């Protein structure tokens, strides 16, 4: 037990404070649906879990290994499609189908890896975008397989039974909440295990300097592919989860460049190559995107009296702020890159250590 805890913690072992925080957070999150039954609150939490899973997954390849893939929509989408196709056309329940999705995605990832890992830096980024676009075009055009641009609608999710007892019929958001929570915890724990293993040291060495790593006995192709397989496999779980939760997928919602960019943003904003960076990124991005969607920002400006709802400016804001996703994300990214190169988490750490030093 102690060795497991040591592995989970930092180099000096898992501190009692960290263990307590973990237990408190897990207990709080596990009990949350018992006290809150507002569907919208549950929905936002599920989006937060989904975002965390996506971010942690990308982080293994992009954050730890330094291979900035902007094509993770490929793995998200292929996972989503495999699960949905198996459920709709072959009556295979999603909790089995999603593992088939992981297997399919890993095969796809190996092919993509063998193409893209020959390239470095910006060329790798471009290749990853191109390959994801190819997957999207396949989904649009292979109509017999994927139902093309019309997408796939989940007509009914079979209830999950153990023996004869129905564990859940997936009618409320609660089962999705717990599935999301479990997967989020799974990806975080996986990331911790990676960071504190030989694999993690090798990933980071490759990120810092490929040639130096190579000369120190590290096989670049092997370790990049392992990082990709882990990263793609977890991303695929996120895709399957999304598909079943929303109940509908089509190429623009699961295979578009938007998704790939979104995944990278979660990490850039939170902090690349850290265990909790994607969690922090999700804490920033999910509420922001929800606020934009429900026009909360315009409402807030009216409430604060910065502009009146009837004035020309007010009408303009009300009409446009909800659709200004891209612009606001863009501004956010620029601000983060300029002022917090290590993400919000890195920035907070710096503030914290600076304050501590000030006190000492």
């Amino acid at each position, binding site marked *: 037990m102690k060795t497991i805890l040591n592995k989970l913690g930092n180099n000096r072992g898992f501190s009692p404070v960290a263990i307590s925080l973990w237990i408190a957070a897990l207990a709080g999150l596990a009990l949350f649906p018992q006290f809150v039954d507002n569907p919208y609150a549950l929905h936002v939490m599920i989006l937060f879990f989904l975002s965390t899973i996506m971010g942690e997954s990308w982080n293994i390849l992009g954050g730890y290994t330094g291979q900035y893939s902007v094509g993770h929509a490929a793995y998200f989408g292929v996972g989503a499609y495999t699960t949905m196709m198996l459920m709709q056309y072959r009556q295979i329940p999603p909790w089995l189908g999603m593992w088939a999705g992981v297997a399919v995605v890993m095969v796809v990832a190996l092919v993509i890896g063998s193409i893209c890992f020959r390239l470095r830096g910006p060329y790798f980024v471009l290749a990853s975008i191109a390959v994801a676009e190819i997957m999207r075009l396949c989904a649009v055009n292979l109509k017999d397989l994927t139902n093309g641009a019309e997408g796939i609608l989940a007509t009914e999710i079979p209830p999950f039974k153990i023996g004869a007892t129905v564990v859940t019929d997936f009618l409320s958001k609660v089962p999705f909440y717990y599935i999301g929570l479990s997967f989020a915890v799974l990806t975080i724990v996986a990331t911790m295990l990676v960071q504190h293993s030989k694999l993690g040291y090798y990933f980071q060495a490759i990120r810092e300097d490929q040639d130096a790593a190579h000369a120190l*006995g590290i096989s670049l192709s092997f370790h990049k592919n392992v990082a990709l397989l882990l990263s793609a496999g977890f991303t695929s779980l996120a895709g399957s989860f999304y598909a079943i939760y929303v109940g509908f997928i089509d190429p623009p919602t699961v295979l578009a460049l938007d998704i790939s960019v979104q995944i990278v943003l979660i990490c850039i904003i939170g902090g690349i190559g850290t265990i909790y960076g994607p969690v922090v990124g999700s804490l920033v991005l999910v509420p922001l995107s929800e606020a934009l969607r429900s026009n909360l920002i315009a409402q807030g400006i009216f409430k604060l009296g910065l502009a009146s709802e009837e004035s020309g400016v007010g009408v303009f804001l009300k009409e446009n702020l909800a659709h200004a996703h891209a612009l606001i994300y863009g501004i956010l990214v620029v601000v983060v890159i300029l002022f917090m190169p290590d993400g919000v988490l890195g920035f907070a750490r710096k503030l914290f250590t600076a304050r501590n030093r000030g006190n000492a």
Partner: protein
Amino acid sequence: MGAILEIKHVSKFFGGLAANSDVSFELAEGMIMGLIGPNGAGKTTLFNCITGYYPPSRGEVIFKGRKMNGLEPNKVCKLGMARTWQKVRPLAKMSVLDNVMVGALCRTNSLKVARDIALEQLKVVRLDRKADFLAGGLPIGERKKLEVARVLATRPQLLLLDEVMGGLNPAESEEIIQLILDIKKHGITQMVIEHDMKAIMRISDRIVVLNSGEKLAEGSPEEIVANQAVVEAYLGSEH
């Protein structure tokens, strides 16, 4: 003692430029071979060809009786040949200790064992007090030491050092010289590129001189100092 490394007619072309042309020599086990020559003579290029950073255009490299051509650098390292970089390559955002651990992990899967090896190597180069510092923040002298500690941690039989004294002050250089002599005592064969003639004469058992990609001379330090061609081509250009 047999040759641990044989370099046979190695040439390397960059476009029309012959950075190495038809270079041949052998390294006996346990010795220190000095590799000298003016700037641009092709010393680093030869290291790159030997360690698989890129393959030689012609000729072969034989390490412990095994042909190395086309072998990737990681395999070369596993076989027991390790190199440092003239332009140091610290893993900047990792700690000094982690840098050396990455080297040590070449021979073990256990982080704990690797940490012990790394701490021991850091003591050897007297960098143990900086173990928890970020490698990217070290001054140049310590970065050079880190390079050495990191390759030593891979437990090499043949060590290729590319200007590890470049940019160091005399005290630091002297430390490195002692380190190189210590490494020799452990039976590790070394090939050392260095511009500091006094240092190279002191440590080398044999010296190879490169000039414009070609081997100009080979011999003991005394023979090299007395060689007229070397004095003209190399020493002459500096004095």
